[in-house]
């Protein structure tokens, strides 16, 4: 009952009167604590977006720094590095969305489901999602070892005389996006397949029998029963993950990147880190961060609209 007026006006069907508020006082007091926590840790940083329109100096603080309007954004979009960084983030995000998040897990789930031995199926599944629980530090470390000049990949390629000299995987800009994509694939394919597997297991077996009667073979069943049944799951997950396209570009790129591949490896987050933290230009770092957030939200909105239109249900 203490401060119910602080909350925004309620449109819920329950009529609000003093009696109800009094009866629910414990709920309200605890909610206020949670809202205060959320405001502090999630909503206050949003206020920091003002910095992007200022020439922020830590000693002046938010209130006394000079406003510079859109100067920081103008600088960003005239900066060739920033444009390249957008391209890198977007392309790697898109590759991740297509291969390690969607195509490979679906194929893996379908093939796993076709396995005859149940024990084998369980073993493969267990092994396949172990890497999900390893940190990117470990995964990139392992990847470095495997792809180094004396690593297993070069060793095999040399052995089978496919190449004459070891490939310098981490010094070839052309290969970098592929390596990042593979890293995600190695780490997340099995994990991302779980949800498709559970969707496959909930398909009505009668459908398969009916398809068999109609003369469908193995591939017919997969093409006409399994995949269409997965359609809603695929679309929802695809749209949901679209919002994360720009978010998928930090840890791997930061850990695998080096001076030689900087042009293709740096992402928006790395740009923010370099300018905001290392160079102490908080305003520019914030501006780049805002760009990322706004684009992500726009993508989510578009995805949501598409979902509504295709009739697959909205995301939120």
């Amino acid at each position, binding site marked *: 009952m203490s401060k119910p007026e602080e909350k925004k006006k309620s449109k819920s069907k329950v009529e609000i009167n003093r009696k109800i508020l009094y009866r629910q006082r414990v709920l309200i007091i605890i909610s206020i604590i949670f809202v205060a926590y959320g405001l502090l840790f999630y909503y206050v940083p949003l206020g920091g977006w003002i910095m992007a329109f200022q020439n922020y100096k830590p000693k002046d603080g938010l209130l006394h720094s000079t406003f510079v309007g859109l100067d920081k954004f103008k600088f960003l979009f005239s900066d060739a590095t920033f444009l390249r960084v957008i391209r890198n983030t977007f392309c790697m995000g898109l590759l991740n969305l297509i291969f390690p998040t969607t195509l490979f897990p679906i194929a893996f789930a379908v093939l796993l489901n076709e396995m005859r031995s149940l024990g084998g199926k369980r073993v493969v599944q267990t092994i396949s999602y172990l890497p999900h629980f390893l940190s990117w*530090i470990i995964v990139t470390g392992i990847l470095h070892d495997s792809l180094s000049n004396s690593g297993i990949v070069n060793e095999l390629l040399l052995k089978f005389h496919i190449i004459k000299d070891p490939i310098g995987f981490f010094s070839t800009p052309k290969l970098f996006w592929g390596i990042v994509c593979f890293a995600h694939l190695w780490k997340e394919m099995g994990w991302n397949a779980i949800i498709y597997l559970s969707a496959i297991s909930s398909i009505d077996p009668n459908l398969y029998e009916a398809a068999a009667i109609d003369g469908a073979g193995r591939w017919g069943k997969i093409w006409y029963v399994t995949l269409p049944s997965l359609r809603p799951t695929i679309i929802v997950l695809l749209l949901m993950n679209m919002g994360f396209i720009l978010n998928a570009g930090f840890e791997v790129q930061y850990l695998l990147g080096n001076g030689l591949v900087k042009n293709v490896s740096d992402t928006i987050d790395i740009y923010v880190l370099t300018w905001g933290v290392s160079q102490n230009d908080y305003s520019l770092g914030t501006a780049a961060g805002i760009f990322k957030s706004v684009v992500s939200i726009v993508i989510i909105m578009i995805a949501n609209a598409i979902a509504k239109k295709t009739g697959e249900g909205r995301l939120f």
Partner: protein
Amino acid sequence: MKETKENKGQENGISLDTSVRKDKIKVATINEKRHGKLKVGDIIFYTCNAIIMIAVCVITLYPVLNTLAISFNDGVDAVRGGVHLIPRMFTWTNYTTVLGKKDIMQGALISVLRTVIGTLLALAANALLAFIVAQRKFVFRSQLALFWVITMYVNGGMIPTLLLYQKLHLTGTFWVYVIPAMISGFNMLVMRTYMEGLPDSLQEAAEIDGAGFFTIFLKVISPLCKPVYATVALFVAVGQWNSWFDTMLYNRFATQYTTLQYELMKLLSSVTSLKGSTGANTTPGSGVNITPISVRSAATILTMAPIVMLYPFLQRYFVTGLTIGGVKE
């Protein structure tokens, strides 16, 4: 009384047996059908499928097992290459070296602490919040839910967050790992979905019996939510154990609070900077054959160990968690 029970038990046993037998017969007929219809195309398909699956397993496991082998192999010898799955010159030196490094052991301690404290705090906070949001009668229920859903999609970004933590004097302390990460909109929603699936009558009965808010939460609802608590705890714990970027951003200069993952990253970058000359870099003066790569392999295995050891026990909670998460509206 006893006899009748036994009789019943026997009856049950018999009926169970017959059902099992029936199942067996069913399976047998299915198998016969399969075998009977097994065409050449099927054989080719199953073989190819098995090969693909084995390839997936090999690609997944080989690098990990290779790291394990190198971690037990003499450092200088390993640089010659050719160590695959079995160490050629077995040694414990790499592990004793790693365990003797003060900053790594310190990091391990901080990692354990942040995992344990962070998980307990997050579990308590998310569960309490989820319980409130799941109260159908609560007048501000939808507003409160929306307030947290928004946090899932919008955040201030790296720099404003960093400045906020500096203002709050969280940077350079242990608490920066656990306090800001206490509540996550997603985990809260997963728990709420599960709680809403419980019958309302439970809570109503408890209310009639005069149980208060916290009694209902702790004694009635929480015991039923063990599966979802376990799932969320698993996600939070793995996240805490694996996280390194917060250390780099907030506690880089507070060396007493760096985590195991961060120390491992430092080892990694020291190795990759020597990438051009992977020759034998024996640590000068130590008199033992240690190379950065062998030390890092040992550290990698040690960092991986807790997760791999707990993996079999935690496995059954993954699917529950994912399906609950997927069901959420």
